[in-house]
């Protein structure tokens, strides 16, 4: 078995798992006033501080959520609503065209139901947003822009965006800037205060923590209307009883992965580069997608001309190689990746793509297993044809 799908979810770090199990044995609602509640609250607040410390934020800026999707929805919708309340003509929402669907679909929803005017920022053939283009947009529409959302790093092709540069442009115009950094934390340097963003999403299960817990780091001065109303937890921005063991394990995973980042990045980048070299040596016409330099350490994304990504996935799965086409699913049917299409790829190339993503537990043996299976799978998939290409 070779697990090459860390961008989908990572195995839990042993220390995070231990912390989870220990906290799950304790009783207590962090909102309760008695000793059990105080015990739980202490665990939650220590976790908040640990995350804040390694992410360059103040503890009060960390708002726990049920994961990345919720944090993205809270940031885009919540900040839009709050900014529109301040000025009813402020209706423009800006997002890059390569965002995860948690941002893209939330923003589209605002367009369809809340009167938002949505602008998608284009990207170049490496998947990068052009700061000049964004600067032009801010100059033209600055007054009307309610919120901007650009991911720190792309989940499919791994391209890292120039976030501090973009955030500075937004900040100069008084526009709150959100970034989805679920793929970036623990992989590349991420510092909330230094980056100048107003809001930042991170999540547990992409960095060795549990699924179902994440956070929106939200600047103290940023107004955000809640999605969830109730008990008023988390600065009144996110009601709901906190998941104490989840939060504790999340914090351990964030702290561990951020502290280990340099060593991790060196090792995994080297392993990734070797994977890329070996894949291109084995399948010479494969196309290495994304930005070769400004990219997540563990990400290797290819198009295999003449193949369906779906077919390759099926054939590799049958040999115990786990990877992803990286594309979104609608009605269970694989659509051509919107990321590849935004990068200028045609339908056939977008459908022929496959993502291998490495993580803390990846080894040389995983590469050997992949390279043993890949040539046969590519040959087979080619024979099956690019069946979805226009006839």
């Amino acid at each position, binding site marked *: 078995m070779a697990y090459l799908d860390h961008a989908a979810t990572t195995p839990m770090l042993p220390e995070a798992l231990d912390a989870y199990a220990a906290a799950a044995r304790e009783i207590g609602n962090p909102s309760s006033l008695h000793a059990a509640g105080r015990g739980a609250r202490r665990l939650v607040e220590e976790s908040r501080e640990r995350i804040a410390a390694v992410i360059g934020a103040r503890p009060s800026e960390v708002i726990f959520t049920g994961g990345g999707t919720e944090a993205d929805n809270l940031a885009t919708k919540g900040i839009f609503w709050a900014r529109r309340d301040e000025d009813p003509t402020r209706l423009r929402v800006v997002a890059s065209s390569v965002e995860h669907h948690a941002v893209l679909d939330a923003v589209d929803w605002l367009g369809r139901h809340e009167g938002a005017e949505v602008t998608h920022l284009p990207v170049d053939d490496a998947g990068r947003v052009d700061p000049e283009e964004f600067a032009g947009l801010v100059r033209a529409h600055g007054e009307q822009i309610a919120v901007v959302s650009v991911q720190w790093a792309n989940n499919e092709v791994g391209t890292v965006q120039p976030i501090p540069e973009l955030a500075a442009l937004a900040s100069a115009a008084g526009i709150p800037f959100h970034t989805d950094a679920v793929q970036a934390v623990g992989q590349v340097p991420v510092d909330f205060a230094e980056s100048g963003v107003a809001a930042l999403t991170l999540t547990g299960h992409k960095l060795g923590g549990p699924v179902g817990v994440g956070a929106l780091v939200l600047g103290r001065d940023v107004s955000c209307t809640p999605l969830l109303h109730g008990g008023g937890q988390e600065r009144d921005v996110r009601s709901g009883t906190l998941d104490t063991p989840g939060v504790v394990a999340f914090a351990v995973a964030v702290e561990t992965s951020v502290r280990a980042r340099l060593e991790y990045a060196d090792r995994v980048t080297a392993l990734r580069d070797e994977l890329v070299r070996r894949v291109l040596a084995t399948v010479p016409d494969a196309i290495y997608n994304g930005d070769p330099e400004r990219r997540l350490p563990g990400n290797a994304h290819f198009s295999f001309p003449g193949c369906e990504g779906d077919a390759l996935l099926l054939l590799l799965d049958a040999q115990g190689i786990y990877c992803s086409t990286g594309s979104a699913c609608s009605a269970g049917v694989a659509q051509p990746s919107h990321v590849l299409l935004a990068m200028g790829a045609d339908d056939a190339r977008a459908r022929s793509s496959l993502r291998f993503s490495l993580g803390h537990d990846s080894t040389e043996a995983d590469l050997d297993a992949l390279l043993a299976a890949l040539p046969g799978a590519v040959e087979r998939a080619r024979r099956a044809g690019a069946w*979805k290409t226009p006839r």
Partner: protein
Amino acid sequence: MRVLAAMSGGVDSAVAAARAKEAGHDVTGVHLALARNPQTYRTGARGCCTLEDSRDARRAADVIGIPFYVWDMADEFHASVVDDFVEEYAAGRTPNPCLRCNEKIKFEAVLDRAVALGFDAVVTGHHARLGADGLLRRSVDLAKDQSYVLAVLTREQLDRAMFPLGDWTKDRVRAEAAARGLAVADKPDSHDICFIADGDTRGFLEGRLGSAPGDIVDGRSGEKLGTHNGAYGYTIGQRKGLNLRVPAADGRPRYVLSITPVTNTVTVGPREDLEVDTVTATRPIWHEASGDVRCEVQLRAHGDVVPASVTVSEGNLTARLETPARGIAAGQAIVAYRPDPGGDIVLGSATITAGTRESAHA
């Protein structure tokens, strides 16, 4: 063998996949997404193309313990089945879309892709028997028998098909599904045409073909008896819904005898004029030697069989019926069977082009 199980989300294909795995095959489940917009197809437990069906299929695959994927066949399905359905009606014929789906989708597009990917066969939950002798036979459960819509398959297609349910009645299949812990055990059978959401075929065709008023005429006198909004809305043998202004001279009911797209005319007449004793058909799939073959023929889905002698030559099939049949529509399949205690054997099939009356009325 490496076997691809086409899983609709219904009970039959789930049990078929489970049985293939139990027989020792390396089985992979695939659900075919056929609807371009799942919301426009039949919902609930009736079709095979909805999101819910896809989830049911995936759940069944998980219980059986096999890999599961969704293959997007919407474009192929639309081109080969839906468009064909509309074109056939526009040409005055009565197509069978289920048959067409087996021929062009399940055992062509899917099978070809499966073979290219290294699979040896496609297994489905059809109720028909396909034994080691390679002969296609009716199911044990005659009420559920689907050999009629599979008879279009060629020898090469049959060689790569597996129908593990043919020896089982539907009741036993359901019981087996329940015993295997498959939640689809009680799922109702699918009916009708999956891509016509409300079951209103005439409305569906009107939406595609538009309204095209024309005459309804008497087949014997040529007299105009009424008008219609589109000849595609009629089927040979149809009696209801003709709305004729002029009563028949003899006061007896009239039936649709023929549909002529060129003149946009629907011809009607008395019941006896529907009777045919000779059926000609095209594109035969024939597993027997040529020459005159005494057999039984079935002329529509779920129709009765008629004794006949069948000749196949030069891309045509001619059947001389021993007793006249009524309501024979061009576009339907004629399927020839040889009665057999082990299940009637499919000898071949072809697409009906015409039914005629050669002998004088009795």
